[in-house]
């Protein structure tokens, strides 16, 4: 994730995800620190090779969902028993079965909105944010492996990218 300012990045664009997977393995074996990998779609088996930990986004999602459950259920309980008790269809004030659909909906709503906002924040995305991406084509058909020039020597990185079959090699200051 591009958090640092003015980082010089050397990156190679591969035409095929198999070449990328192979290159990532080679880099790990050669102890080259990878700055980041960008792919247009989730590449199967990439996460374990990169050693990425399982995302904790769904744990946040559970908390948001539970918050939605509580908001809806306790909210309706308070409204229909304390704040504005009304009899609907001869049912008791505290009509739990009638609360369930709304409780379900708010659980989904809270989890969905909460997880979306969290995802945007941790990825530095949002309305009006200019994204610091390396190349437009990594959202289309190119697979990108990037090195930080301050960490991995530029010449070394370029020769590595070339030797692993990168179709194009560029560098860019983010």
């Amino acid at each position, binding site marked *: 994730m591009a958090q640092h300012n003015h980082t010089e990045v050397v990156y190679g664009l591969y035409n095929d995800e198999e070449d990328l997977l192979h290159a990532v393995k080679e880099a790990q074996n050669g102890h080259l620190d990878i700055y980041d990998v960008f792919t247009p779609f989730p590449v199967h*088996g990439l996460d374990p090779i990169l050693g990425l930990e399982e995302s904790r986004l769904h744990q946040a999602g*559970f908390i948001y969902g539970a918050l939605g459950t509580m908001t809806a259920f306790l909210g309706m309980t308070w409204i229909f028993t304390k704040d504005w008790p009304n009899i609907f269809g001869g049912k008791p004030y505290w009509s739990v079965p009638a609360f369930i659909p709304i409780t379900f909906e708010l659980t989904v709503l809270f989890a969905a909105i909460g997880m979306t906002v969290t995802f945007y924040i941790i990825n530095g995305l949002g309305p009006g944010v200019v994204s610091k991406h390396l190349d437009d084509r990594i959202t289309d058909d190119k697979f990108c492996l990037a090195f930080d020039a301050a960490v991995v020597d530029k010449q070394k990185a370029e020769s590595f990218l070339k030797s692993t079959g990168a179709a194009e090699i560029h560098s860019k200051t983010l």
Partner: protein
Amino acid sequence: MNQYTIKPAHRNILFGAMALGVLSMALTWLGDDAHHTRFWTNFLHNSVFFTMVSAMALFFIAACVTAYAGWHTVFKRIWEAYSMFLFVGLGLLFIVALGVFMHWHHLYHWADEASVETDAVLKGKSSFLNKNWYMFGTIIFVGLWAFFALKLRSLSLSEDNTGDANYAQHKSMRVYAAILLPVFGFSSAAMIWQWVMSVDAHWYSTLFAWYSTASAFVTMIAITILTLIYLKSNGYYENVTQHHIHDLGKFLFAISVFWTYLWFSQFMLIWYANIGEETIYFKERYNNYPILFFANLGVNFLVPFLILMRNDTKRKFGSVSFVAIIVLLGHWVDYFLMIKPGALITASHAGGVEGHAEESHGAEAGHHAAEHVSTFVDGFTIPGLLELGTFLGFFGLFAFVSLTVLSKAALTPKNDPYLEESIHHHVV
């Protein structure tokens, strides 16, 4: 090892379970009321339960073939083996259907001609709820399912021997599977109405078939998980990995939630509308079976929902088999609650053998009926030891039949177009 053989010790355990089942059923019969209501409800309950489990295995094979799914191919022989139990289920339910004809039991109010004559509701339903339809549906529809099960399995077996890159058998399976799905969709609903919903003959719910079929589906997935883990622990199915178990765990989770959705949809609409002839079904269960009524929902929803929500609990054999056992018993209790209350009411209305004559005697007859009921009410409001014994007997029969069928063919099919995909199946 690609060829399964039942260990003698395990076979003896299954025979022991079946013997326990026969003993329980005999004891039930001896200590029963005049109609042998407890015996027949247990017989119907377990027959329908395991027949529906094997029917759902057949349905799932057909659904996977039609959907071009390949993840299950390494262990699809297990479902093929389950689906062969349909032949046994056909025999078991034929006995129930014969019982309707011969008046061996009093499970169904609509089967009592004298009651139907004086009852406008039952009379209105009599074009569907009658002994001929019951017999016809049981023989023809279950027979049809069994035919499709046999056909799909024999195509799969012939693929092992003569399958090649033309995939002629698989293409033929697609045709059979596509024909089966709509046929099964309508016929399974009709049979569920006949076998189970018509126990409460005056009551009906348009959601009932969905709800009870979802229950059977969850059970089928739970039994699949337990069978796979049993076979893996005995050294078979090394090519079935935690990735396959993970997907089965997802199905166990998802269909449990789906079942809850259907249970609640059925309950809430009836509760909200509060029409007497509809609420009677839930009022009976709420008042007289409160523990089972709430435990059913708690066990079959909360346990799989909370435990299987995480990624890793669907992959670990310990947690997933724990949930599978709970859910298997939970859905057995679910079917118990579908059948027993209605049958008990029917039996108590009928009283003794000359039920209707006695009812007219007023208080005395009421007392008599209550006395009759009290001899077997323990086995109704909660499953007693005899119910558990009967369940173990039927479970042993189901396990014995399906494991025997499983031992007749290679565990992992050969030449299936989706085999490679299934072996390399990988989910994160």
